[in-house]
């Protein structure tokens, strides 16, 4: 069979990094995790009337709710980051703009994710 690798790829001599489907696979895994977590999240907001401050604090003091919320945030921000990356890759053609917006978007996701998890733990461990 004819060699399908490009001349540049031949010259570099690097093989497959074996992570070709990693992005796709993690997007599916986080999606699977988000099925129960996001249902629980939305119905909790509606069920417990979390607009009230003391109700919200009491909810976050519940260890089950706090752990579920941390798991939800990890899956949510990871899944969101992977999804937005694909959208940028599809629609932004200019190379520097594509790379730049993906890096910025990932930083924002990590920052929001870290802040959200920290906020939950601060209330959960607080008096």
């Amino acid at each position, binding site marked *: 069979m004819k060699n399908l690798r490009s001349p540049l790829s031949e010259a570099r001599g690097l093989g497959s990094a074996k992570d070709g489907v990693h992005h796709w696979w993690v997007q599916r895994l986080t999606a699977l995790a988000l099925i129960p977590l996001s*249902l629980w999240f939305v119905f909790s907001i509606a069920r417990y009337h979390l607009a*009230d401050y003391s109700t919200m604090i009491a909810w976050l003091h519940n260890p089950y709710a706090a752990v579920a919320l941390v798991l939800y945030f990890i899956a949510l921000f990871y899944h969101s980051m992977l999804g937005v990356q694909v*959208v940028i890759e599809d629609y932004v053609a200019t190379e520097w703009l594509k790379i730049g917006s993906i890096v910025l978007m990932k930083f924002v996701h990590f920052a929001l994710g870290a802040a959200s998890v920290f906020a939950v733990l*601060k209330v959960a461990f607080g008096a």
Partner: protein
Amino acid sequence: MSSKPSAKPAVSRPLSPFMLGQYYRFQISSLLSITHRITGVGLAIGTIFIAVWVMSAAAGPAPYGQFAWFAHTPIGLLLLLGWSWALFFHFCNGIRHLVWDVGYAFDKKSVDAGGWIVVVASVVLTAIVWAIAYLVPATA
């Protein structure tokens, strides 16, 4: 010789027309495909509000009160309504995608039927969650 993929092509060739609009007959699958993306990006923007919401709870009763006040303004409620429907749509259509990923419901009939099920289910789930929020008294 190779050229950068982003470089302007020497010959401008006709492009395949966009999946929605005057060129193709309407299909539920193409409409839901782009809606899945749009709701996905919308939900990604929504994570900013989720982060501000939990951080305001950690900041104390006054900041939390401000956030809760904003959530109950007409704009806030409209954003919440849009967020809840977008989430349930992306949720249902995401499950449809996961079913395809394991190799089921790929024939034309199932793809169309699944699409309509997703549309109806997303509206029903949104109605249920808002009914719970406003009609069922809170239990601690």
